[in-house]
């Protein structure tokens, strides 16, 4: 397996591979996100209790789910970076963390906007809301540590340790609504049970989740390419890569 994976540990190979995937992932993201959001926000029926206010679910649930799964990806990159000392796993921290932090912030903001008309409050210090806020701080902490050292390897090391330890917050967020009594309702989408949601709302929600997932992937691929270039700026392959493009630009 290592022999097969080994070529992919080269930054230039990953840079080109992500560059090839990027347009396809971005196009698929635009398509599914557009379809899911238009279906959900315009065509899906209103809810029997919440009327049209529930429609914010088509942004809130995808961003909240992704904020947690991206954190798991972040923690796995950190583990791989620490144990196998792969530079690229460390760089993935810098690629994933801002996207995850933004999604976490969007989930908190949409939750507050949803909470005000439905619950009657923007914010309540219940277990779900508080643990999600801690997730935002974890992302910000990982980013801050990553950039806090003049030697990038030390930054990646410190950020990686925080990222790994912080993964404990993920099951706490996930099960907070079951372990403690909270203002936030229980999970609608679970792996093993049929969700208590009408199909006419469920399908656009699932498509929106896919769309936000692809969008996050596209953003992360793009950021990863940037981080690779930033770290490898003085390597010959970067000069070759862009020298070629410069020559072409001069010719035309």
């Amino acid at each position, binding site marked *: 397996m290592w022999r097969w994976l080994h070529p992919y540990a080269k930054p230039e190979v990953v840079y080109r591979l992500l560059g090839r995937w990027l347009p396809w992932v971005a196009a698929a993201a635009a398509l599914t996100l557009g379809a899911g959001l238009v279906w959900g926000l315009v065509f899906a029926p209103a809810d*029997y209790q919440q009327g049209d206010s529930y429609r914010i679910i088509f942004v809130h649930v995808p961003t909240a789910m992704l904020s947690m799964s991206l954190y798991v990806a972040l923690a796995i990159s950190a583990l791989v970076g620490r144990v196998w000392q792969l530079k690229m796993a460390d760089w993935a921290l810098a690629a994933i963390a801002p996207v995850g932090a933004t999604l976490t912030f969007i989930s908190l903001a949409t939750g507050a906007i949803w909470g005000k008309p439905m*619950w009657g409050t923007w914010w309540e210090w219940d277990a779900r809301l508080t643990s999600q806020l801690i997730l935002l701080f974890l992302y910000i902490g990982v980013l801050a540590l990553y950039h806090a050292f003049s030697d990038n390897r030390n930054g990646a090391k410190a950020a990686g340790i925080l990222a*790994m330890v912080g993964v404990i917050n993920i099951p706490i967020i996930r099960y907070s609504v079951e372990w403690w009594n909270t203002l936030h309702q229980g999970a609608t989408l679970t792996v093993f049970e049929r969700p208590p949601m009408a199909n006419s*709302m469920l399908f656009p929600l699932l498509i929106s989740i896919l769309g936000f997932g692809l969008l996050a992937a596209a953003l992360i691929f793009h950021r990863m390419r940037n981080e690779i270039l930033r770290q490898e700026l003085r390597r010959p392959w970067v000069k070759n890569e862009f020298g070629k493009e410069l020559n072409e630009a001069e010719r035309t």
Partner: protein
Amino acid sequence: MAMNPRRKRRLLWALGLIAGVAVAFSIILYALSQNIDLFYTPTEVVEGKGKDAVKPAVGQRLRIGGMVVEDSVKRNQETLEVEFLVTDIGPEVKILYTGILPDLFREGQGIVAQGVMIEPTVMKATEVLAKHDEEYMPPELAEQMKGIKHVNPNQPDAFEGNQ
């Protein structure tokens, strides 16, 4: 597959770190579990909470969460005063409140009230929040499945059937 001993040591170190912090946090959260709960249930107010069956004292400030009992909502026609009973699995607690209730407030719906106990089972609330559950469906389906005559909340006479 044989692992390089240095990698193995680093892997054990990393997993040990995560496991150690996880154990520490589960102990902390277990110790704090009663404080992390957002509210008391009516049963906990009446019969006491936890192993020691601690009951809230009169004058204590707390939150109570439960279902609004059907036909228990009494509104004062002149003022914004309202009183209602909340329940979970049996015991009922009375909530007194003056103010505007959230849109989702209705009988049979979950609420969380924050306020001061003025009698062992009566709370004077300063804030009433509505809970909603994880079910989402269009009004026609809700009527079929649950026999709920709902309620397009956007219509001006939406809630008259409930009162």
